[in-house]
């Protein structure tokens, strides 16, 4: 039996448009994406971008789409078989042959009625049982309306990949270099010309040729003449170097954020986050992050899914949208010991040796559960647009203490509806009408931030 995918309504809609006050596309544009990946992204965007044909009843279609994605999409495709049969045309197929609604709602119960068509379908897809779904007849109608009116995505005009500006950046450097070389050549030639002229002048004045001196000697002599200027230049260079070193020291050991290239290690399987978790309206699968990273809400670790979680879907899905994708899926099958030909496990298992992307120092305790379950943060607020613009995972945030406590300083504690915070507030309110002095202090800016409840205290993270 396959677990049911939990696909809520597009959760990205719940996300504040600009959670950290950082210009997302801006910081992404600075990322350098290697040409191979650019090509890969291009192919993806070509194959995935889709334009929808407009159906007659847009509202019904939309609600059907939502229901389909929430309830059916993990096991059914519209046009082709997956874990379960393709859904297009099912309504016509069932007309007069049985109760489609009952079949959808609880297939195992309906099977007991001995309906011929049901038995036929069961024989084809057993032993995978379809879990009963709590849908009304209207909702089922909406789903089939959506399914029957769905049009496969049409390739969109390719957009320039986001990596482009950085390439321009490196071209600029090249131009600057050429320019600098030109200047150098011109400068050297000019100094030659100047020297010849000086010689000529000197000869003309009858003083004979100037003494043969090396360029360095002449430079020294010139520098000595322009002592003040040179010391300013020297000072400027020293200060500039120190400042640069200072800046560089700040990002030692920092592998994310705006100032350094993001850490994006080579992974044994090039898992594509965008494809799996990206928005459905862009042709992606929109799987909830916590379907795979299920321990994020209960543990300090978000958890890398075990291979059996991949196999929930990839038992059925053995081909990718691209050839490269198929190759990666094959790797999963190898690790899980799954023989897609025979449709059986061989027992030859091998765990995937992923490279950890987000590394915190040992003395810092970070709990995903606190941030996800209590703080109700979206994954993207710290992990960046992993569902939109990252194929293989990379470290988006700098993960420095500054970054942590900046957020703790600004972020309001999500107290509403939480009995724990009701108690905290009751204590802060105390017995007086005016409330506790501390509470007034906290509320000066109109909100109670994480910092004010102790989010800046050392032993919240270091113990």
């Amino acid at each position: 039996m396959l677990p049911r995918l939990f696909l809520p309504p597009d959760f990205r809609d719940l996300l504040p448009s600009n959670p950290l006050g950082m210009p997302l596309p801006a910081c992404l544009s600075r990322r350098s994406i290697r040409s191979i990946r650019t090509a890969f992204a291009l192919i993806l965007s070509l194959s995935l971008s889709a334009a929808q044909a407009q159906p007659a009843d847009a509202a019904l279609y939309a609600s059907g789409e939502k229901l389909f994605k929430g309830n059916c999409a993990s096991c059914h495709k519209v046009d082709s078989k997956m874990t379960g049969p393709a859904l297009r045309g099912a309504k016509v197929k069932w007309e007069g042959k049985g109760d489609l609604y009952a079949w959808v709602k609880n297939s195992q119960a309906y099977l007991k009625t001995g309906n011929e068509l049901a038995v036929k379908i069961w024989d084809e897809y057993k032993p995978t049982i379809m879990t009963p779904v709590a849908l009304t007849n209207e909702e089922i109608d909406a789903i089939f309306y959506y399914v029957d009116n769905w049009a496969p995505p049409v390739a969109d005009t390719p957009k320039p990949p986001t990596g482009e500006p950085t390439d321009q950046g490196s071209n600029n450097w090249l131009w600057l270099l050429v320019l600098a070389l030109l200047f150098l050549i011109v400068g050297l030639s000019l100094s030659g010309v100047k020297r010849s002229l000086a010689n000529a002048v000197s000869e003309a004045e009858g003083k004979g040729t100037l003494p043969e001196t090396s360029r360095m000697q002449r430079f020294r002599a010139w520098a000595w003449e322009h002592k003040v200027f040179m010391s300013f230049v020297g000072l400027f260079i020293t200060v500039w170097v120190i400042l640069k070193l200072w800046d560089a020291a700040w990002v030692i050991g920092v592998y994310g954020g705006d100032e350094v290239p993001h850490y994006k290690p080579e992974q044994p399987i090039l898992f594509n986050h965008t494809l799996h978790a990206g928005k459905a309206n862009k042709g992606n699968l929109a799987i909830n992050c916590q379907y795979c990273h299920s321990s994020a809400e209960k543990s300090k670790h978000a958890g890398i899914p075990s291979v059996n979680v991949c196999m929930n879907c990839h038992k059925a899905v053995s081909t990718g949208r691209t050839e490269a994708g198929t190759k990666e899926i094959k790797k999963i099958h190898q690790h899980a010991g799954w023989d897609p030909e025979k449709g059986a496990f061989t027992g030859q298992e091998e765990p995937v040796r992923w490279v950890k992307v987000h590394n915190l120092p040992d003395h810092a305790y970070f709990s995903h559960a606190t941030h996800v379950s209590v703080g109700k943060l979206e994954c993207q607020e710290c992990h960046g647009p992993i569902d939109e613009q990252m194929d293989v995972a990379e470290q988006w945030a700098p993960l420095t203490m500054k970054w942590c406590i900046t957020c703790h300083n600004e972020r309001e504690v999500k107290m509403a509806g939480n009995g724990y915070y009701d108690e905290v507030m009751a204590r802060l309110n105390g017995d007086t009408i005016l409330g506790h002095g501390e509470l007034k202090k906290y509320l000066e800016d109109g909100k109670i931030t994480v910092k004010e409840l102790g989010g800046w205290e050392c032993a919240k993270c270091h113990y």
Partner: protein
Amino acid sequence: MSSTKRIWMDAADLRQDTEAIKARESEFPQELAIDQVLGDANFNGAHTGRRDFLKFLGFSLGAATLAACETPVIKSIPYVTKPEEITPGVANWYASTFYDGQDFASILVKTREGRPIHIKGNPQFGINRNPALPKGVVNARINSSVLSLYDNERLKVPYSREGRSTWADADKAITDGLNAAIAADKRIVVLTNTVISPSTNAAIAALKARYSTVEHVQHDTISYSGVTGANLKSFGKRVFPSYDFTKADAVVSLDADFLSSWGSTTEYTWQYASRRNPDGAMNKHFQVEARMSITGANADARIPVKPSEIPFAVIALHDAIAKKSGGVSVGGGMDSAELNQAADALWNARGRSLVVCGSNDEGVQVLVNSINSMLGNYGSTIDLDNHTYFFQGDDAVAAQLVKDMNAGAIGAVLMAGVNPAYSLSNAAGFKSGLSKVGLSVSFSRYADETASLCNWICPDNHYLESWGDFMPKVGQYALAQPVIGKLFDTRSWQESVLKWSGSEAKWNDFIKQTWQANLAAHSAGASFDSVWNQSLHDGVLASHTMPATPVAFAGDLGTAAAAAKQAANGASEWELSLYATEAIGDGQHANNPWLQEMPDPLTKITWDNYVCMAGSDLMRLADGVMRDPEDALKVGEQSPALQVKVTAGTSEIVLPAIFSPGQKPGTIAIALGYGRGANGEKVGKAACTTDHNGVFGSVGRNAYPFTSLRNGSVSYDAVNVSLTATGETYPVAITQTHLTHMDRHSIVRETSVGVYKAGDRNAYNKPHTLPVHEDVNEDGVIDSRDRKPVAAFDLWAEHPVEGVGHRWGLSIDLNSCIGCGACITACNSENNISVVGKDEVRRSREMHWLRLDRYYSSDTKWHEGREAGESKISLYTRMEEPSERPTVFFMPVMCQHCNHAPCETVCPVAATTHSNEGLNQMVYNRCIGTRYCANNCPYKVRRFNWFNYVSDKFGEVNPAWDDLGRMVLNPDVTVRARGVIEKCSMCVQNIQAGKLAAKKAGTPVKDGSIETACSAACGTGAIIFGDLNDKQSMVRGKAEGDRSYHMLEEIGVKPNVNYLVKVRNTEAETA
């Protein structure tokens, strides 16, 4: 050893050139021609110029910087198929059972990612559960046992005399050996400690069914044969009864250390502590003993007597009670007014009293039974119908076995849970007998003293890797389940027995079958599977209790008294009593570094056993040996201990002598369980260490040879002992050198129950006040009577603590604290506290976050002395001297989490700060190691990491050094590096986890849902943790009670830890 293929590394190896091979062993050869190199004239001339030096420096710096910039590649490898119950980062708790022949406890085991890392008592089920809290009692030995799982010296495969072997070979050879024994018509003996497992008994029965001459002999390392034998003679049942201290209004214990080492201590401790609440009906406890024991330290009245006098004290008590009850007197008892008081107390509480005796003499125990019988205690405080199954060993049978072995009558012996070559008084006889046995098999986890002499060692699993079932009492069952897969190629010894009996059953299936067969009678209605699953979940099944039946004493008092009086035969100047310490017990856990480093609750000595002596005796012995005999009393870093030679019979050992206040003059006491692996046996890490002379050897000396067989049971006293000073001294590692609290009531406060009940707080717990320059008492004059309590003063701006979220605090009840020290080892386990070894403890560098201070009372009182006109200096000196018959205080001290913490103000880098939850936080990554904080801490609870303890230097003692030992570390707590201060964090990791659970559930933190390691380990309820801002919390209630005070209140640091005044039931009986 059939392999003929030879592999060599080089020519020297092939030729077996010993010189060359030896030279290769040292990585840096000694004969390196340094002189030659340095003597070279060219070399002398060579020098590194300033510029070159700077170039090198710059290059190295640059290279190091570049190297540091490399992103570390860390692999993260998830399961292929994740077990449903495991979530990485979230702890799982499993109910299981600990039983090792001396302790029994239902426990909960904490596992992280499949590794057991912490043990606490089962708060819901089991006989060791204190229902009032609820918490399960465990002692230090039990909660430290998780570490022994990761001991790298455990045997990893079966061994034969030839070396490593396989299970197939072992099974074949042993089956052949057993058949040979049968063919020769010789007996096969299964020698075990007391088996309380129904399934193990069934497995042995299965072996007997296959081999007709199988005989099961049980032998307890520390014997209770005299107690069970006396019960056989008195009541016809050879059992160890169940005692119920909760019902006992008066307790008289004669040399029975029932809070630490005698009987079922995990039960007695909570039962006893529940009757020490001064707000309830407090019991009255008399202790009659020679050595100051933990139980004696808790007693209301302690009567010191010599070991040879114990039988006469019993007789005196017996006759006093007999006089009152009209029973038969025995005659010849001690004449003691104090014993008569005890008798009065018992008689006044007859039917609700209890007399226990630690003597292993049958005669003495028959008299004790008679006393309890006359008092009508059977059926109330003593239950023979629902007796325990502990301590079934019979010393006479064990002694006979040694004789039979020597006579060649035994064909095979299989040994589990025993170490007779170490612990028998007749160990030499046992060893010679063992060599005459055709097949000897040990199931020991180590190649210990006995196992190393056997033909085969078939290593048993660690109990955390094993299934097991237990029947501690009639109708009480318990289960043990494995919490980790087997680390090594070991096998449950019961499974081995089953295998040799021809059964292929797995041990866990066998247990289930046995339960199914046995439970049918007691679980009517419910399906077996549901009962089994529930029992496994709970760890316990309380199936039934037997109804009380009338108990009639049928012992022969005359014979018993005659036998008892023999104890005094041959008494000489010195008498010796042997005892088991709280940490090491009978010695099977001597390889556990946490236990070795846990200071003895009374002497505060670690990593050694020693001779406990009275001060006057010790000074007499030291006279002429030490420059100042008084130095012998002041053992510590500066003064080593006097070494003495103890001789009794044919045995003698040399040990340091320690001043133990309260020890009866003329008697000495030595702890059993030390001196493991004295002949180079590998008995586990930390049982042997390198001493101050650089000699690798066992920790302490073995005192078991001083035991002897008397009246058919092993006696743990020796009355004819000689004692001489060797003239040498010996350094001991002691954690507390001052003995008394010097009459400072701001540290410990004490009162009697009468004063307490009178209700005037100022009489026993007067708040500290300071004079102020304002008219507080409004009498119109500003004088010294105008005082304010210390709490009214603030040197700095106050931390906002009241009403701001939580304020975590501990309340420590000096009345409930019996001094067992389970909190110390629990803290070790929870907080990854380094073990530093004897040498560092000697330098006061132990790392324990929680210490258990022990203070003896002094006869000198400050005010009395001053009034008598004594000089201050002589008063101070005399106040340091403990009383001959001292009262004892135990006081757990951890970081007090002061709201005006002196440590916080002096840290130059703000590495220690205050949280708004009242915690004094220590941030290791900020700390630069100035140690100003430790200097400024009035409680001296801060510890400095002098070394990188997780290093080679400490590999011998610190379990975290090797890869296996490291598995016990709690991943939620940082392992501290060299150069930083550390201290009690009030288990902030548990606080954070508890708060998170509450936030996720959307409910306020429930009182009791968060526990520190120490409070969870404290089954007597002495340490209570909670939120002081929660007005309903238990800790708040205690903090606001009349008994509450702060240690060193006068310095105004406002701690979040409070103590409750100790109340002793010392008023004379009035009824």
